[in-house]
């Protein structure tokens, strides 16, 4: 399969270089073509290197245990055992944990999108004294390692009896986070102020302008923030590990971790579990890749 795609790309590069670059010297052309082939070979090699863990994961998840420990091992399972997936979701309360994770994730996404959009509007579109200093503070908070505040935060949540609930995982997301504020502020700055001025003349206040004009206009950036927070909350391990005490409230991450402690080297089940937990992130990536990349582009463009 790799071979065939390689030759295909080589042919493609052949045709494009002969049509568009006729004015180059022949030797130059040949050199260019060789360079292109080399680039494709490296690109394909790196792709195989990066994709093989995922392919291996799915392949292992479908093998019977005898086939996994056999030498030499197989890359494509000889006997496909779908039962591995059934056994995995039955060996711990998979769907209950998935529901728990979903509840937390929905609130975190909601909190992040609303609060960061709200805060960023203030920083981008309203003049007030001390704004510069405050924004510098926002950026400075990015430099504080999470572990520095983790212990006193835990003490705080213990004192107000939030440990053992989802509140410590959800509530902080309603108060903004530096990276998202930065990202959305950049997006707001690209929106013309005339629109806001016109709305003000019509008697609209900032709350109205934000909720009725800005939210629709900043949709792409809000989706980016939403997707990144979904990914973050879905895969968060540290938060639930610290704050969830009751087993019935576990998230998928905690469930998978304790499952992996129980069944070390039961690779077929473990890989089935890993595949199931990763599927939402992978699907989201393929359907909303544009937004992932836009999130990075935005920061890349401004920090450069």
């Amino acid at each position, binding site marked *: 399969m790799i071979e065939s795609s390689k030759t295909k790309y080589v042919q*493609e590069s052949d045709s494009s270089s002969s049509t568009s670059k006729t004015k180059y010297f022949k030797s130059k052309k040949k050199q260019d073509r060789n360079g*292109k082939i080399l*680039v494709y070979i490296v*690109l394909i090699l*790196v*792709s195989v290197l*990066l*994709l093989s*863990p*995922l392919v*291996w994961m799915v392949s*292992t998840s479908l093998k019977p245990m005898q086939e*996994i420990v056999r030498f*030499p*091992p197989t890359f494509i399972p000889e006997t496909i055992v779908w039962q591995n997936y059934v056994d995995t979701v039955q060996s711990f309360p998979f769907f209950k944990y998935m529901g728990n994770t979903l509840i937390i994730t929905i609130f975190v996404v909601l909190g992040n999108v609303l*609060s960061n959009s*709200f805060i960023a509007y*203030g*920083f981008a579109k*309203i*003049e*007030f004294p001390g*704004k510069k200093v*405050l924004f510098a503070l*926002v950026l400075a*908070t990015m*430099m*504080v*390692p*999470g572990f*520095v505040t983790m*212990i*006193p935060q*835990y*003490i*705080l949540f213990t004192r107000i009896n939030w440990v053992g609930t989802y509140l410590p995982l959800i509530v*902080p997301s309603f*108060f*903004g986070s530096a990276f998202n504020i930065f990202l959305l502020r950049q997006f707001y700055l690209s929106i013309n102020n005339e629109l806001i001025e016109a709305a003000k003349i019509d008697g609209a206040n*900032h709350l109205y302008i934000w909720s009725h004009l800005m939210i629709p206009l900043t949709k792409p950036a809000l989706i980016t923030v939403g997707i990144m927070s979904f990914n973050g909350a879905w*895969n968060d*391990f540290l938060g639930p*590990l610290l704050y969830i005490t009751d087993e019935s409230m576990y998230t998928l*991450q905690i469930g*998978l971790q304790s499952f992996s*402690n129980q069944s070390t*080297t039961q*690779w077929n089940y473990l*890989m089935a579990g890993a595949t199931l*937990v*990763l599927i939402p*992130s*992978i699907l989201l990536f393929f359907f909303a*890749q544009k937004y*992932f990349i836009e999130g990075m*582009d935005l*920061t*890349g463009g401004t*920090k*450069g």
Partner: protein
Amino acid sequence: MHANQTSNNNGKNKRKKMNWNKRKRNEALWGLLFVSPFIIGFLAFMFLPMMFSLIGSFTNYNITSQMDFIGLDNFIRMFTTDQLFLKSLYNTIYYVILNVPLTTAGGVFLAVLLNRNIRGITIFRTIFYLPAILSGVAVYVLWMQLLSPTSGLINLVLSFVGIDGPAWLFDPDWTKPALILMRLWSVGGAMLLYLATLQNVPRQLYESAEVDGANRFKKLWHITLPMITPIIFYDVITSTIGAFQIFQAAYVMTENGTGGPANSLLFYNLHMWNKAFVAFDMGYAMAMSLVLFAIVLVLTFINLKLAPKWVHY
């Protein structure tokens, strides 16, 4: 008549000015309202907790009964009686020193590789970026299998080329390289940052360099790399901070944070975690968190000081 008109005008101006002031004050209140969630969150979840840490680190606080002032004892203990502290610091610095340059170089390499107009390039970009968005326990479990000495993919591939692969997570000499290997898998995140910048480099720069007879490597060294030094700088700072926080991988891959073979995966934060939430030695753990913060601040400061020597703005 004439005088009357001027005074009238003055009054108008005054009223206008007053109105303007009022509007400005009104606007400022709106601004504060909008940023207030950040201010409240900063005070409640960052500033006050850090102040508490600052006080708590000079006590023997254990969350339930005691909080006596014990001076610098916690800090002295770190460097004298707590053997594991220095071990964890060593492990973490080892990890940071290997991790930061490798991931930066990896990100730049992939970005340079992708920064060309050839067919199918967006597919490669997607493939390179995919591992970077995957995280959490599933990724660690997957890598525990890949790194498995007997049935893992990595040693299998190594055996094809005649190399007898190490025991990775079971050999104290290979545990940290194993984690760095795993980290390199998701180098696509940094790559995307570089790629965005590379695509903004003016083409004329390369064209005029070609006229002057510059080859591939000269162009890379004299144009591409200088153009992305601000991003390298940003990447080095953030990935240093990130690498110092390594915890989850080590916690999951050493069965509940026991530290792995010969404590070779006992990273700083893992040790801090065990002190805080296993031994409930909160005062000591808070002191450790302050030391970590100081280390990160000093490193960031050094990075900022060194920046003018190599970063092109």
